């Protein structure tokens, strides 16, 4: 009886200034069951990682426990001086992230290009 769970794909690209950006593309659900997919994936990133782009566009269901994992990732990134940009949240979850205050620490962008551009702005 297996739910699709959380899927995550990692990609490395370069921003306009030729500096690398690590993209984490999430799909499926982000819930309390997503610890490994969110924090495990984050912890597996190279120590040299400075820029992280989160793609939420394929996420179907997100709850407060999932948002807590995103916050934990943001805390860890903050400590290492990494910058996180994200995009692809539905208008509803943009609203929820704003209610919770996440937007004060990481901007939500309309699309991938804008989010990527924000690293070099």
């Amino acid at each position, binding site marked *: 009886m297996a*739910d699709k769970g959380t899927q995550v794909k990692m990609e490395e690209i370069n921003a306009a200034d030729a500096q690398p950006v690590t993209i984490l593309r999430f799909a499926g659900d982000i*819930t*309390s*069951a997503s610890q490994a997919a969110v924090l495990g994936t984050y912890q597996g990133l190279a120590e040299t990682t400075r820029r992280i782009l989160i793609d939420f566009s394929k996420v179907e*269901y997100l*709850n*407060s*426990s999932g*948002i*807590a*994992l995103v*916050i*934990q990732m*943001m*805390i860890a990134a*903050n400590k290492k001086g990494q910058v996180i940009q994200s995009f692809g949240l*539905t*208008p*509803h979850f943009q609203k*929820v992230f704003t*209610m*919770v*205050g*996440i937007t*004060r*620490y990481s901007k939500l962008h309309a699309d991938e290009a804008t989010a990527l551009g924000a690293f070099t702005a």
Partner: protein
Amino acid sequence: MNEVVPNNIELKLPSRLGFEKIAMNTAASVARIMGFPEDRIEDLKTAIAEACINAIEHGNKLNEALLVGVNLNMTPDTLEVRVHDTGTGPSFPVEVPDIDKKMHEQQQPRGMGIFLIRSLVDEAEWVSTPGGSYARLLIRLHPEPIAAIEERD
């Protein structure tokens, strides 16, 4: 036609994390039939999911043999949802989430469910009964327009 419960829909789920999605989609279907706009349905979905997660996790302590009951009551203007568990309910006040505290690890990253429920529906309350506890959420089909509220200032 008949005054007896013809507008009440009942759902019973075992207390398993993930099953809140069933309640969420059942409620969304009811709200859609009632004519709620899609953004309001999204609000309701998140609120009901959070109430069910709390009932599963805190109320029924993840014991799958205990059921979560979801009651959906329709009136011409409102959809009222009661999410029942067998526990004693939250003890208020619950701490309001504060992102600055969370980011500085002065508050645990979790603890946003009740805050989100309250923010997303028109009315929310938590009631303890002898046999258990329930969260009662209500959304209105025609919420008072902001203009009307502003006029009162």
